């Protein structure tokens, strides 16, 4: 909607947008370049005359090889995948049932329960990690994937419930009532009539929950201790940084490969993901 001369479009639109895109994406480009840069070039100070920051002429796969052969990286990926998928499934299951109950059924304290779930939605992980670590230890779940599979739903369920409530509210009641008149039980009407209509919402919630689990850090850092149990984020942090020594090439390779699953899922379901973000703030 910019009226007038061409230069105005450049100054007020093209240029700022280009700067935004470059600024937001540059760190990922830097990650990629560093991954394939040989060590000799990597540790050349920026003051050096032959410092070529933005490209490399001798790309190498050494860092990726080191990462895959010398560290437990593939194990960490599997751990993270297992934990994220299970936590997502549990959260979707709970969120579907709770979201249906809160948006469709009349029962005492429905309003206050809804508010309660909304409040837990806003509880950050950093508020509870110390007592929770103690509880995990008492339940003998410490240093097992179950510590995370069971605790990740605490921040995923409120989100899923909240998002799905929005979808359920938009489905006309008549649809369900027809099925009920034809003899469907409440359970059948919910599972066979309402849930299929809410599939886009379920996809959004699931994708979002998966990326949030993949992103989680502090619980994984505190609850897991042995190297073969760790998730990608924690594994890279603790095993590729030894004291003051950073294995930068392999670190960047790990960051890059560790992002791939999330990026892939995201690229397939961008629209659902955006719907998840906007649904989460609409309330």
């Amino acid at each position, binding site marked *: *909607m*910019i009226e007038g001369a061409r230069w105005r479009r450049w100054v007020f639109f093209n240029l700022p*947008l280009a700067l*935004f895109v470059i600024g*937001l994406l540059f*760190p990922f480009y*830097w*990650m990629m370049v560093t991954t394939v840069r040989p060590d000799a070039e990597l*540790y050349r*100070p*920026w003051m050096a005359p032959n410092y070529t920051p*933005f490209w490399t002429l001798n790309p190498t796969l050494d860092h990726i090889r080191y990462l895959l052969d010398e560290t437990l990286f593939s194990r960490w990926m599997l751990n993270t995948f297992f934990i994220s998928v299970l936590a997502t499934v549990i959260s979707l299951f709970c969120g579907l*049932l*709770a979201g249906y109950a*809160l948006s469709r*059924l009349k029962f005492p304290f*429905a309003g206050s*329960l809804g508010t309660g*779930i909304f409040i*837990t939605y*806003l*509880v*950050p992980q*950093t*508020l*509870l*990690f*110390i*007592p929770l670590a*103690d*509880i995990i230890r008492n339940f003998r779940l410490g240093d097992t994937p179950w510590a995370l599979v*069971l*605790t990740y*739903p605490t921040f995923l*369920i*409120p989100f899923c*419930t909240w998002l799905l409530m929005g979808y359920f509210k938009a489905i006309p009641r008549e649809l369900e009532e027809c099925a009920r*008149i*034809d*003899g469907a039980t*409440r*359970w059948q009407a919910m599972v*066979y009539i309402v849930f*299929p209509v809410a599939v886009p919402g379920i996809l959004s919630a699931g994708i979002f929950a998966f990326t949030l689990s*993949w*992103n989680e850090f*502090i619980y994984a*850092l*505190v609850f897991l201790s042995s190297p073969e149990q760790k998730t990608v*984020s924690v594994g*890279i*942090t603790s095993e590729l940084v030894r004291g003051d020594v950073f294995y930068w090439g392999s670190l960047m390779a790990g*960051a890059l490969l560790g*992002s791939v699953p*999330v*990026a892939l899922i995201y690229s397939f379901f961008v629209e659902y*993901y*955006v719907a998840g*973000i*906007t649904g989460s703030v609409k309330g």
Partner: protein
Amino acid sequence: MAVDSVVAARPYVSAPRRGPVTRVLENERWFAFFLLLPTAVLLGLFIAYPFVKGVLLAVTDAKVGVPGNFVGLQNFAVLMNDSIFRVAVWNTILYTAVTTVFKLALGLWLALLLNRHFRAKALTRAFILLPFIIPTVLSTFAWKWMFDPTFSVINWTLFHLGIIRTRINWLGDPGLALISVMIVNIWRGVPFYAISLLAGLQTISPELAEAAAIDGARPWQRFRYITWPLLLPVTMVVVLFSVIQTFADFQLVYILTGGGPANATQLFATYAYQVGVGTGLLGEGAAISLAMFPVLLVVVVVQLLYIRRVETL
């Protein structure tokens, strides 16, 4: 297909025979109770219980492996006189306030840019969200490497643009470290603001702005008196969400500086981790974490009141 089979299987003339389980589930209250049960159990065990436990820990001198004795409010009294804790409180407030202002301003600007029609719009939008979806720890390592004093690409660029003459020690200089951490937080937060606000912008009918333009309103006036007021509800919710997340931030600082140099970037969460997990003083660590609670509570209450007000309008 599933729908058909349900509908066809039970002609409604003959009353269907149902087992005791189904009969209980047909009662609306019991049905609701069973649907909410799994959620209640999980949230009770891993949110409500830890919260109570956290309060109980905070009034003891518990250490790892030692149950500890009741010490009343001594942990909080110690914190009041703890100079590092005071620094952490101040840093957290500054960190939250500054980054929120920048994230909102830049996010809104980006949203307004994206709200226009241009080629490759969907692609641009998809790429712009990357900083938000890539795991924070992983992208933060890229920033840590970009901030490295000896090998920094940022320094190289600024030097060759003629802006700096000597190297900048982004994360090592106590006066600069918090700013560097803020930059990364803003970088990660802007896409979330932009996409949320863009969704809000798209619900505003363009006819309103056109009508105002015909009446002679300048672009700035159109934004100030039409777009901004209509966008305010979405903006409020986005800001409150982001304030909570930022206030309780941990990963970013843990990776970039670990709270250093000399506690210059220490936040509530990083200090709680250092005391509670690093040193093993569970009671004191829990007290530091819980000290965040009053602020978070205020934000949550504001948010609840605001949502209720919008809903009743």
